[in-house]
């Protein structure tokens, strides 16, 4: 399959991929997207455009993806199962591909109760694993989920998310296996802080032969503050932040905490570069896009390869 995705080319060429993230604005503010995009250009291979993340209404992920393209970025169009049924998903996929989007990340989505419209009806017509299968069917068989032929199937590089540590822990690698079987070409993990658990999960994925079938991009988030670390440890579902991380941030003087956070992230990236089965890093610098050039520089992932 040739999607025309640069991310796909980079991974297939054996380069260590480096992707970023951009959250669309809470409005139609185009300049906001352009501003956030600027520091990412040339520093990442692709940028995830989130889809109403945390169940808050934002500019459509496909629309912000198009703006990202205009700014010289390759978008990774995120699609959740929360807000659309299978008809809307397939039509958005066709539209996204028609207008130049080449990567899609298939997600369940945060529950609507977390967001600014908790009274809304969550759709969840299909789940993320089924969404992966649907995109693959559209691409490889040229058929809609309902079975009819597609006039010009969308050639998309298909991504999935993975959480290596949420309980039941022994299930995690099997969920990855299901997503790979459904058709995921690449996987981006939840933010990793528990490296021990990540090593074990990747080892299991290697043992099951999964890493030969899918590119795993390890999720890295630099901690900006001790408050952020504590919040992620206690308030974000499915997150695993070991005490050592918080202690390490507490161990430096106040104005050096964010620097220490970046240092931790860079150490993780160095380890991922050497980890068998890991094909790259997905950097989620949450509301910290302007720091991406510095992080990329310090993580020694620059210059990005041309393919």
């Amino acid at each position, binding site marked *: 399959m040739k999607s025309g995705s640069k991310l796909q080319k980079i991974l297939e060429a054996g380069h260590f991929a480096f992707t970023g993230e951009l959250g669309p604005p809470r409005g139609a503010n185009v300049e906001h997207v352009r501003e956030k995009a600027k520091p990412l250009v040339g520093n990442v291979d692709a940028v995830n455009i989130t889809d109403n993340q945390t169940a808050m209404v934002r500019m459509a992920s496909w629309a912000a993806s198009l703006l990202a393209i205009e700014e010289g970025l390759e978008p990774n169009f995120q699609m959740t*199962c*929360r807000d659309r049924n*299978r008809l809307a998903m397939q039509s958005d996929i066709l539209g996204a591909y028609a207008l130049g989007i080449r990567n899609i990340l298939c997600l*369940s*989505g*945060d*529950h609507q*109760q*977390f967001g600014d419209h908790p009274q809304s009806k*969550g759709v*969840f*017509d*299909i*789940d*993320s*694993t*089924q969404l992966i*299968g*649907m995109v693959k069917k559209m691409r490889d068989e040229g058929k809609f*989920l309902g079975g009819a032929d597609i006039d010009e199937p969308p050639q998309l590089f298909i991504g999935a*998310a*993975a*959480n290596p540590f*949420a*309980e*039941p822990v022994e*299930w995690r690698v*099997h*969920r990855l*296996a*299901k997503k790979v*079987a*459904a058709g995921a070409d690449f996987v981006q993990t*939840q933010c990793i802080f528990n490296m021990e658990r990540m090593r074990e999960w990747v080892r299991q994925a290697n043992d099951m032969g999964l890493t030969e079938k899918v590119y795993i991009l390890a999720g890295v988030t630099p901690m900006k503050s001790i408050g952020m670390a504590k919040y992620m440890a206690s308030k974000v*579902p*499915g997150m695993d932040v070991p005490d050592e991380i918080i202690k390490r941030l507490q161990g430096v003087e106040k104005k050096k905490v964010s620097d220490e956070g970046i240092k931790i992230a860079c150490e993780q990236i160095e380890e991922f570069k050497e980890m068998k089965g890991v094909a790259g890093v997905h950097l989620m610098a949450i509301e910290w896009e302007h720091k991406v050039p510095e992080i990329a520089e310090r993580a020694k992932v620059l210059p990005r390869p041309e393919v």
Partner: protein
Amino acid sequence: MIVAERKPFDEIKTMVQGYQKVLTIGCGTCVAVCLAGGEKEVGVLNKELQLARKMAGSPITLGAHTVERQCDMEFLEELDSIVDEYDALLSMACGAGVQFLGERFPNIPVFPAVDTTFIGANRDVGWYEEKCRACGSCVLGMTSGICPVTMCAKGLFNGPCGGTNKGSCEIHADQPCAWYQIHERLALQGRLDNILEICPPNDWRNQTPRTIVQPGYEERKKAMGGK
């Protein structure tokens, strides 16, 4: 059973405010068991309405009658000779009962006094939990008797998702993660293979009004004028 809860009193009061003679009709089946709309609750509601209307200076005449099942025309027959005395009916049955009342007595306005909430089970007296969304294509065999459509907040078929939090659902620490429990029970039964295969997209059969005629009853239905 069908579980319901009484609507807030002010909402009920507002619905019947323009009527002077109202018949409150209870149902002796599900809603009586879940303490929302049986004979006792009819009595309580009527007392409250009586008092409120008296205080508001617009007294109301209230009747009380509880039938065995409002979702069965056979049991509604006993109301035929009573309802004409009233200018509104206040049903304490589930939505099915309210609609059957409306169908039988189309000339008289019918109002719901309860909100029909879910198909659930009796955890203890006065304590009920939702268990089934009536999706029409049951997967409880695959999931060892725990419903992913009802008990998973995202209705996932290939869970647990990444939001599962040490056995709790991401929506609330008190809400168990259905898929965590499914995994646990299948592991206990040595049947984890059940969920290693991808579960395909569901065939949602609850998107249009459904009618079921059990085998052997088709002729009876035709004889009654059903198509």
